[in-house]
């Protein structure tokens, strides 16, 4: 372990950062004649309980960065630590487990499971984590639905809910294991202004009450302005 590595490790603990990126690069098409580098060495730290917006034009690498932070994709080079754990050399199962426990995802198109009720969708991360559905998980899921104002819709299928309601279920689902980090990929992208505001406020209150760090990818400068911190990415570099 070199000196700088040691320093990096110490700082990541001291600062109690939830996510720590150092020199993250991501290339596609490795081993083929056309190699495209999407991220050109990203250094980024997100502190516990931070509420940050990630903005940038299309094709700037926002989603790739989010996927790497969310452990859905592996970086080509660089170091990434999530919740104090260095992810280099982690096997898929460990990576999956860390993702399940520490990170909650909210996608642009809610991505609820159509065959399951709202309640079951919210319970799903806990069912995956335990391997079973438990009464406690059901209770927690019900409370979360209540918190997002959908207690009455608990037994409805996603197709029976409006877009805003579906996104609120998705937020409740992201919260179900009380993750320390919530990653949202344009959560308000396909909603009208009114619903978008509601969702944004919901995320803010979650951040306040649960101290979960939030990283929100958004195109909406109005919403980005309301975040504690704005991270801007252009052509694969932070500016």
């Amino acid at each position, binding site marked *: 372990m070199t000196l700088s590595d040691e320093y990096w490790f110490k700082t990541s603990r001291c600062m109690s950062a939830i996510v720590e990126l150092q020199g993250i690069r991501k290339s596609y098409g490795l081993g083929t004649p056309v190699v495209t580098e999407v991220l050109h060495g990203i250094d980024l730290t997100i502190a516990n309980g931070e509420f940050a917006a990630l903005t940038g034009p299309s094709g700037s690498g926002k989603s790739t960065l989010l996927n790497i932070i969310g452990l859905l994709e592996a970086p080509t080079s660089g170091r990434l630590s999530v919740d104090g754990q260095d992810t280099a050399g982690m096997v898929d*199962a460990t990576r999956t487990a860390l993702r*399940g426990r520490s990170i909650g995802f909210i996608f642009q198109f809610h991505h609820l499971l159509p065959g399951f009720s709202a309640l079951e969708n919210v319970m799903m*991360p806990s069912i*995956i984590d335990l391997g079973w559905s438990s009464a406690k998980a059901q209770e927690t899921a019900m409370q979360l639905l209540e918190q997002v104002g959908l207690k009455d819709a608990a037994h409805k299928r996603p197709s029976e809910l409006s877009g805003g309601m579906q996104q609120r279920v998705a937020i409740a*689902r992201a919260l179900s294991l009380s993750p320390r980090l919530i990653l949202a990929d344009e959560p308000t992208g396909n909603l009208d202004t009114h619903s978008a505001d509601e969702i944004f406020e919901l995320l803010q209150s979650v951040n306040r009450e649960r101290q979960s760090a939030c990283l929100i990818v958004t195109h909406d400068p109005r919403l980005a302005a309301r975040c504690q911190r704005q991270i801007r990415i252009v052509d694969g570099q932070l500016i």
Partner: protein
Amino acid sequence: MRLPFAWMVCLRYLREGRMQTLLILAGVTAGVAVIIFLTTLISQLQASIIDKTLGSQAHIVMKPPRAVNLPSLPGSSTAAIVQPRAQRLRSIDQWEAVARLAAQTRGVQAVSPILSGAGFAARAEANQPIALLGVDPQAYQRIVRMDKYLTLGRFDVSGANTVIGVELAKDLGVALGDKIRVITMEGRNDLLTIAGIFDIGNRDLNRRWVYSSIKMAQSLLDLPGGITEIDLRVTDLFQAERTALELQAQTGLTVDSWMQTNAQLLTALKSQSMSNNLIRFFVVLIVAVGIASVLVVSVVQKQKEIGILRAMGATPRRVMSVFLLQGGFYGLLGSALGSGLSLALLNFFSSFSRNADGTLLISPDLEPSVVAWACALALVVGLLAAALPARRAASMDPVQAIRA
């Protein structure tokens, strides 16, 4: 609702794709029913054919070696006309030792020494050529179930009693308790009392076979202390030839199994079994392809959901088990329904297909081993057919899957 994750998702997917589930279940059900029905039908028909053909025959017959000419000079150095030897009635040398050896051979169930020779049965002016069979009734009944074939009287050949066939009784105009005279080519004759009349379903044998005690036959055929053949019954019918070869090597006698003497029957049975296996193979193949194709389509349809489950922390192994369970479910439920359907089919067919004598051609009984075998096969086929789609689902890249 305390189901494991994989079961919960699997059952929900099955319910969601109701139409697909029902169709493939119908396919598996039909496949399993066909396999069980055909196997039961063919094994029952074969058992009935074997019983009819071999019921009145020994599985293995041991006879003295054929008498041959033994030239004292090499054949090429003499110019002579060699006539084949006539085969006179001879006893098996040391037959009691041979019978004991046969009884101790693996796979042999019953041994019956028999003395048989040609003669005539006469009453008043009527006479008929016969084959006189001197038997030990107890040993013989273990080879041929005479009690099954007796129409009148008992199978009693003690003393001067005899048992004859219905055709001979008709030809000579005799009934139970009457006497017939049996004359042999050795110039001996005796008066025998009819103690039983049999019908073994073959007109020729009903006319020719006349049973007596071994002692009576020995005296009539002038072969004191001798017997001319040893009949054997084996436990495994289709191992008869091997046992016969073994005994032939050990004794030097002529040993024939039913598989040689009824070569055509054996061919028929074998080709029947082969066609059954062929049908089974193709049914299994079709069922497997059906399950696999349904699951392949399902994996493609559920691509996005698989990606979401992976993003929420489901391991590839868990995703794989969701689809493997579906395959197993199709196999298991399909085989349960298929067993029921095959029982219904058997009941239906047995209700109107009957033998010439009015007995059932097919009995509506399922062999438990056949059902267990078919169910196990369906389960394995379901799991194997699901393996490929399941692996595909498990190896999906969550990012690509969600984006798709």
